[in-house]
């Protein structure tokens, strides 16, 4: 298990990193190419009369329409990526605010002990991750078990797993046109635990028992119905080979899509700059169109980032609580 899992640990993340960077570059290229092909001029736009008001609509050729569609996809990805990063940072900050730090751990000051009714052990933080254990963990585990758990978490800290997990998660949602990223992101989360388990066993002088009994303690006292230890981790501790194959079909589809998009952008940008006779709707010479578009964008922005969304989420949480209360 060790060599195998460490190998895939590196590979899964490198692949996700490469595909993510590729996807982001393409998204940016689509947007910038579209903007660059816009040649502003009132003569190029066509007038239309709606309810007595003069509007203009852009005069665009097929290549330009296709480029516009690609640019919209790219812009959506970039916005989703920014929103995902913003949310990750925000919820991490709220987590840190709400965590009640009790003290640093006596024998290892790099570890923070927190007050939490459940046994917890995790690594959080992006640039300077920290290891957190709950006081319940310290009470519950024997010294050997705690050492194994801390070795597991320090491994996450050393390789900055929270940052990697956040990166993989954000990009897999933002780059929806790269389907394999989601599988890679989920796989990375599993493989990160396998590697950390391996580090814990190594720290216990090759003994599996301390980590195994610690994992049992966590699994048994977790919240009812919650997900916990994956069966694959037990298999890995038993020394069984890990059975995971790269989703080659999805990878091929993703690579095909990415290269297809790249080629398309490259080809179209040539065609669009040769004809260069279109306006994007936003840049239409009609000022009121610009104002209207800005207002629509503002409303959309507020709904996505602002209060209504948060209120809606809070309402959902409240509703769930009421349903649980009603059932009991």
């Amino acid at each position: 298990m060790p060599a195998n899992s460490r190998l895939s640990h590196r590979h899964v993340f490198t692949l996700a990193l490469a595909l993510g960077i590729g996807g982001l570059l393409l998204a940016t290229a689509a947007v910038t190419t579209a903007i660059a092909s816009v040649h502003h001029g009132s003569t190029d736009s066509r007038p239309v009369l709606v309810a007595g008001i003069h509007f203009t609509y852009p005069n665009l050729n097929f290549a330009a329409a296709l480029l516009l569609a690609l640019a919209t996809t790219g812009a959506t990805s970039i916005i989703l990526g920014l929103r995902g990063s913003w949310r990750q940072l925000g919820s991490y900050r709220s987590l840190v605010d709400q965590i009640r730090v009790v003290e640093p751990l006596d024998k290892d000051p790099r570890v923070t002990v927190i007050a939490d009714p459940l046994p917890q052990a995790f690594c959080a933080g992006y640039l300077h991750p920290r290891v957190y254990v709950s006081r319940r963990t310290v009470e519950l585990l024997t010294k050997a078990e705690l050492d194994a758990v801390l070795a597991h978490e320090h491994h996450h800290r050393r390789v900055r797993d929270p940052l990697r997990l956040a990166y993989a998660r954000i990009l897999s949602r933002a780059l929806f046109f790269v389907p394999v990223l989601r599988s890679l992101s989920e796989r990375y989360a599993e493989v990160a635990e396998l590697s950390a388990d391996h580090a814990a066993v190594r720290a216990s002088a090759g003994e599996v028992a301390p980590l195994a009994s610690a994992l049992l303690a966590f699994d048994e006292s977790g919240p009812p119905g919650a997900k916990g230890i994956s069966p694959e981790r037990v298999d890995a501790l038993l020394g069984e080979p890990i059975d995971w194959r790269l989703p080659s079909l999805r990878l091929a589809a993703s690579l095909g899509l990415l290269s297809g998009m790249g080629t398309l952008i490259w080809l179209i940008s040539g065609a669009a700059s040769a004809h260069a006779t279109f306006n994007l709707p936003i840049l239409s010479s009609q000022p009121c169109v610009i104002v209207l578009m800005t207002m629509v964008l503002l409303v959309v922005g507020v709904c996505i980032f602002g209060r209504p969304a948060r209120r809606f989420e809070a309402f959902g949480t409240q509703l769930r609580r009421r349903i649980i209360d009603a059932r009991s």
Partner: protein
Amino acid sequence: MCPDSLDIDGQTPPPLHELEEEVMEEIWRRHEVSVREVMKALNVRASKARAYTTYMTIMARLDSKGLLERRREGKTDFYRPVYTRDRYTDLRALGAIESVVDQFGEVALAHIARQMAQLDPEHRRSLQRLARKQ
């Protein structure tokens, strides 16, 4: 496991806030105390001494939250914990929705036991066997 089987029976005691926890810890250590005793014990350790009324308010609040029981003797109120410390922790664990880490499930953090999967009985037995091999 379906959500219906969640053990939420309305008995989950409320969480403790910072100062409440300090006070409860002291009461758990001594079993039955007056406000003045708690104040003396905590102010010795605290960097900034807090007023008697602060402790009085907190202990009255803990009483109304159902965590303390009050007994009046002459002019003095004595408080004792309703649950032992372990019992409190266990009850809180049952109502684990309040766990900070679970509340922020969307934060990317590497948790030792919060994966997408769950152990089946066979794997659990294997893990138990591994745990016994000391």
